[in-house]
């Protein structure tokens, strides 16, 4: 990796002041599980790295009023082990535990999971975020078995690797980001993930000099669950995931969310699938119907058509698990 200056300030104010307003000039270090690899791969060559390790206000989980607030540098292990999170948000626990490796659970952070870069193998092999050589899309013409089946009309064909994103969107979470001079912005989780229009953009709504500080999840008594289709049980990416959340009143579901992971450049809200649940009694047939609906509109590339079936299975199983929770 290229040499860089390292700063570990103790306040958000100092930290944001150390960040450049241009992508790539500075990078934020939390757990480092993605950043260090990216530095070694020369995907980024910042002149300064700002570590969040000494900023105590970014740590910990609190239940206050009608919300659970999760500090961005809370580790995935702390998140999955938290009493309130376990009680209210099993969808989040499954997603965090799914990361699989004890090392990553101990070091990787909640904010880092949301901000990590694409794992597209063309990107990681130096062909840019969109995996192009000249005007040719290597992804479209090459091996796209792990790529997007939704939201792939443009040049971005990678999938969002975030494990927590789909669950947070399903749970209607809000992300708090802090910019220069402690300027706070609240972003709905669903708006946080963005499909870049050019290969030099990033995959979230964060600005280069903003830090993701906190995740707020409202306590609404939603039944919720995540199902991940994964082959290897240790450290590995799932092939497709579904996070669902809904209310049950008088035996009928309402206010449903169905969000898919690993199938689009952003966590993919399956709006049509959510509608199938509204005002209905959840049983095996409805869960299957919801899975079918979630797969509608998929546009598989040459080698990832199998993900359509995985979406159906993941949604069906997540709905069933949430209803049983």
């Amino acid at each position, binding site marked *: 990796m290229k040499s860089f200056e390292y700063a570990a300030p103790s306040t958000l104010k100092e930290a944001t002041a150390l960040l450049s307003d241009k992508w790539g000039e500075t990078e934020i270090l939390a757990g480092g599980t993605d950043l260090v690899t990216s530095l070694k791969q020369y995907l980024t060559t910042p002149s300064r790295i700002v570590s969040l390790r000494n900023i105590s206000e970014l740590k910990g989980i609190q239940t206050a009023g009608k919300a659970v607030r999760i500090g961005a540098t809370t580790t995935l292990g702390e998140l999955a082990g938290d009493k309130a999170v376990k009680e209210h948000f099993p969808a989040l626990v499954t997603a965090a535990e799914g990361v699989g490796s004890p090392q990553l659970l101990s070091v990787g952070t909640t904010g880092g999971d949301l901000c990590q870069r694409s*794992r597209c193998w*063309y990107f990681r092999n130096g062909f840019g975020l969109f995996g192009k050589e000249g005007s040719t899309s290597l992804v479209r013409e090459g091996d796209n078995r792990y790529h997007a089946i939704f939201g792939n009309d443009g040049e971005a064909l990678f999938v969002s690797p975030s494990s927590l994103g789909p669950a947070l969107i399903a749970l209607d979470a809000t992300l708090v980001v802090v910019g220069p001079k402690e300027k706070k912005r609240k972003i709905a989780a669903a708006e946080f993930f963005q499909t870049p229009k050019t290969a030099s953009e990033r995959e979230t709504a964060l600005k280069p000099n903003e830090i993701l500080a906190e995740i707020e999840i409202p306590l609404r008594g939603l039944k919720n669950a995540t199902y991940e289709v994964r*082959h290897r049980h*240790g450290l590995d990416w799932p092939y497709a995931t579904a996070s669902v959340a809904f209310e049950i009143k008088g035996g009928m579901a309402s206010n449903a969310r169905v969000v898919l992971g690993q199938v689009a450049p952003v966590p993919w809200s399956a709006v049509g699938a959510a509608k199938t649940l509204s005002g209905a009694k959840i049983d095996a047939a409805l869960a299957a119907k919801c899975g079918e609906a979630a797969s509608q509109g998929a546009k598989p590339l040459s080698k990832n058509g199998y993900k359509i079936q*995985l979406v159906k299975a*993941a949604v069906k199983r997540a709905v069933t698990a949430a209803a049983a929770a």
Partner: protein
Amino acid sequence: MAKVDWPAADKRALIGKRISRADGPVKATGAAKYSYDVNRPGLLYAKLVWSPYARAEVVSVDTGPAAALPGVKAVWKDDTLIGKEVNFAGQILAAVAAQTEEIAAEAARRVKVEYKPLEHQVRDDDPALSQGNPDKREDGNVDDALAKAEVVVNGRYSIPVIAHCCLEPHGQVTEIRDGELYVWPSTQNVSGYADRSLAEATEIPQNKIHVDCQYMGGGFGSKFGVDKWGTIGAALSKQTGRPVKLMLDRDLELMIAGNRPSAHAAVKVGASKDGTLTAIDAEIWGTAGMGGTLPRDFPYIFTKIPNNRRVVKRIQAHRGSARAWRAPNHPQLCFLTMSALADMAAGLKMDELEFFLKNLQFVDPKMGGGRAPEVYAEELRIAADLIGYKQKAHPRGDPSSGPIKRGLGMALHTWGGQGHASECDVTISPDGSVEAKLGSQDLGTGARTCVGIVVAETLGLPLNGVKVEIGKNDYPKSGGSGGSTTIGGVSVSSRQAATAVLNELLAKVAPRLGVEPDALEARAGEIRVTADPGKKISWKEACATLGVMPVTKRGVNTPGESLNAGLISQGVGGVQMADVAVDIETGIVTINEMVAVQDCGLIIDLKTAESQVYGALIMGITYALFEEAVYDPKTGRMLNADMEFYRLAGIKDVGKLKVHMMTGKGYDDRGVIGLGEPPVISPGAAIANAVANAIGVRAPHLPLTPDRVLAVLQKGGATA
């Protein structure tokens, strides 16, 4: 040379018992230093510059910008490649040595290489891509036999190129002191490592090259030679006068330091209605990258099927060359043969176990068919009992409802495993301490422990009464650890050395006990009169009779002689069965259980032998379910040269493993035979057959990932 044999079963104090490996604690605590861990004073770190193109002309290489970076101490480039072609991605062109690993990596990026990219070809899935004349062999008349066969089954199968993926990558530390070269390589070949390429790279004669490899993190057939990185490291040490550590990064390790050839095949099998095989025919194609041997000895094990033919078509691809991968080419041939035969059993609507038992008549050890049919029959019955075959077996396609389908499958394998040439010195000191020394290596197999067991058994001592020194080429020469040849080699040489040195000791002790030396035996820490065990002296007292000088004797294993004497032999047979669950809604295959039944002659240490088999099952499950080198036809690059998408099984992925070693009469009396290769041969075939049995349709391409399983289910398999 002392005439030796193996002790009878009732006389064995250590041999054949379950004994924990002597170096287990130092490995578990991290105290054991692997080649990668060797740090010498003033150490420099080297990084390599390699071609990102699968094929290109190298126009120029400019190391100037790298040399200018502060901290860089030396640069090297391969002048022989300038103006020539590189023909696989990862081919090494230049190197740098620097004070830190980070500076070295940055400097390597600054080396300016000008390429003229040329057209490349990295695919292996189409026989039309093959070059040269097909390698054809036919026994009998296959076309005629297939035309007459009552049942004919066609299949198309494939097993991909995979890497060795050694946990410790290839590489070494080199240091030149006082005109002598010291090398700490990660190698399978301590005695033979210091070859002429190393001498030429440093202008240091071979007899002044000292090799030291105490612990190494896996080789599997890929770590015999010095390799280009070895000569580069030594050259950088020579240039700088400083020690240099050059270990491959994971990406290069996966691209260029291994590769098992792929095998695709179209297979036709003919049989009569009673289940007797009458013909088998295969067109096989695949790639060994830029060089290496393709699988060709088809059919596997069932070599005596009356009409058999195979045509092998070689595809040269711009990829790193193949190297011997644990049981070279056997896993591929086993997978192709056993898959086709299981499909025939299904075609006949015959129980798979019954079908294999019936057709053991076509297994002939004299025709390269492995072990005798009755050995396989016995092993099949044991495996069936262990896995609960009778209770669980069903015809192809699990009839139960629900998305999880269960199935059983099996496969048979063989390997040679004759011991290699080996020399060993055993020394007894007057204080009673004992040392065995040999230029062998322990790849994690337990070789170090087994040498200790043989010497301790011979001298009537506990295992910790023997110090075993291996891993240096200054010690008596011993063969490279490949082809399951180590245990046969080192057990005989150490047995001979220990016997010879004991004879010397007994000659000194005999007068004290008033008997002839051959009336004595060494047992339980004593030298005693065999016929009158009360007449004895302790080991320590006995050794004191040596006076002031230690006694050393050398043992030599000469394979031909040991074979004739029955100390070693070759040819083992094994059977494995798999019990799998397939989720037909997701295509996820899970291993419930694997059973391995294996013979390997006289077992020196039952525990490390079983460990070999457990390890092989894990490695086999890995290539059955996860492993595949993914090459991109457009860029010619390996897309998954990392441990993220080059997947290996973890502990939760392997299910329950049961190992049964064949011992006792008919097995122990064959002498010692190697075990490294055989148990890794069958898992791919057994698991693939179990998946077909579960879902009712053949998933013909390894690894058995969800996309491949779902693809065949959508064409018609089990339904929930």
